[in-house]
């Protein structure tokens, strides 16, 4: 890919910083008549870990799904590594990009889902090597070597040939993280990665995510894990009713929340 941020028109949001991975500008999104994102703007720099919190229905999951165009947007712009995601501009209007181009953009953006979504008909290793081989054209032997390394990294070396149905939720989610990492993404999105897990399995997944953050991965995490946010996040973003109401360092947001909604939300969950 070309130099970061090269394609962002100066007219939108000013001059981008060179180490910017994500720039979302005034993103609006409707489900039918319901406006679920009401002008969300967010910038994430390389290596930053941003945790998005907020009550359910606040639009945080929808926003993250817009970042790799799993959801369409009605207006605004989303840039990842300087490339407009999902759309082309034609005379100031957004026109949805061709499927092939969107697929190409998604290669750089890893995503981890609440419900894991491992491919049921593939083994743990099979899940990991699938996209490198068939999307990137990595030779099978090389992909398998990378896949085994990643399994070791998430602590599941002994589960290479096991099918998802025989793995615990925590193990499935770790495989899912390894699967996303196999594409060597420059950005990782986590959509409530521990919400579907039994309490005793949350730790093992957060540990992997923490290790990933320390390794310098740029991450956007939708999560209710305040401990994780406090320890790992560079920035915490509070969303409510389709808008970002407050953002800041974990200390600022958790100790001295300025917005009423943040205070109310935190008092409920802390």
């Amino acid at each position, binding site marked *: 890919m070309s130099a970061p941020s090269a394609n962002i028109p100066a007219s939108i949001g000013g001059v981008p910083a060179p180490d910017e991975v994500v720039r979302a500008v005034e993103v609006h999104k409707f489900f039918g008549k319901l406006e679920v994102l009401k002008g969300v703007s967010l910038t994430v720099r390389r290596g930053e870990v941003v945790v998005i919190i907020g009550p359910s229905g606040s639009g945080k999951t929808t926003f993250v799904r817009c970042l790799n165009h799993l959801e369409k947007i009605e207006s605004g712009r989303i840039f990842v590594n300087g490339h407009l995601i999902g759309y082309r501009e034609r005379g100031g209007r957004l026109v949805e990009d061709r499927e092939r181009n969107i697929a*190409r953009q998604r290669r750089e953006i890893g995503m981890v889902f609440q419900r894991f979504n491992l491919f049921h*008909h593939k083994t743990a290793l099979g899940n990991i090597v699938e996209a490198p081989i068939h999307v990137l054209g990595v030779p099978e032997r090389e992909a398998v070597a990378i896949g085994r390394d990643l399994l070791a990294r998430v602590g599941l070396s002994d589960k290479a040939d096991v*099918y998802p149905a*025989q793995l615990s939720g925590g193990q499935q989610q770790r495989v899912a993280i390894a*699967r*996303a990492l196999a594409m060597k993404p420059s950005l990782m999105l986590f959509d409530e990665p521990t919400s579907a897990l039994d309490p005793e399995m949350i730790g093992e997944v957060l540990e992997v995510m923490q290790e990933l953050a320390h390794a310098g991965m740029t991450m956007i995490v939708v999560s209710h894990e305040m401990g994780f946010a406090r320890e790992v996040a560079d920035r915490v973003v509070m969303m409510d009713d389709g808008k970002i109401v407050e953002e800041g360092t974990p200390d600022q947001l958790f100790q001295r929340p300025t917005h009423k909604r943040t205070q109310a939300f935190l008092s409920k969950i802390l």
Partner: protein
Amino acid sequence: MSFDWPFFWHYLLRPSAAYLNGLMLTLVLSVAAQALGTSLGLFAALGRMSRMAPLQYTIRGYIWIMRGTPLLVQIVFIYTGLAAGGIFRFEDISLGILTIPGNVQAGLVALSLNEAAYMAEIIRAGITSVDSGQTEAAKSLGMTYGLLMRRIVLPQAARFVIPPLGNEFNAMLKNTTLVSVIGVPELLLTTETLTSATFRVFELYSVVALYYLTLTTVWGIIQNRIESRFSEPATPAAVTPGFGERFFGSAIFSAVRKKA
């Protein structure tokens, strides 16, 4: 009651060469029409689910007509009707030593086109049964529609498609009798020919019924074996990699591969 037992046993256990040829033709037609119908049905299913409205409505219309008119009418229409209307005439095709008569081609075409409509609905149901999270995960990894269909969705849809596919083939074995009306010498027409020479309708139709019963019974046993391999969702036995591809052979998977 007059039933000539020696005659019955003779034709049941020592079928003539013509009778065996008829049996062979029934089998070949059934397998070929099911394979073609399944392949066409796959494309019809994908077209039916397409976001391109003209394609979607064309396929809908096709399914509507093929499921809404009798197969017997379709067979006569395609072979005799089209020729009489001066639109298309099925000519014999010679492939070296093997000649495929026009009426056999027409029979195969009619059976396949009809089957495609039913398979389209079955495959569509199978595809929609696959959890949408699978598609989203595949998309998030940069897969295009063709790739994610071929690698992720269709192999999992196969589990839902295989039981009804087995029932379709059972029906197909019996539906091939309908092409006897355009003179295709499959098992039933061979029986009719024998009947007109011997007038032993009771005995010969008992024989032919037993032949069909044997075919469908043997298929039933095979079908059970296949289904038991696919019955448990997402366990290794049910999803042995490559089994779906081996089962369908060239019919589904290579057809998609070529397209992708």
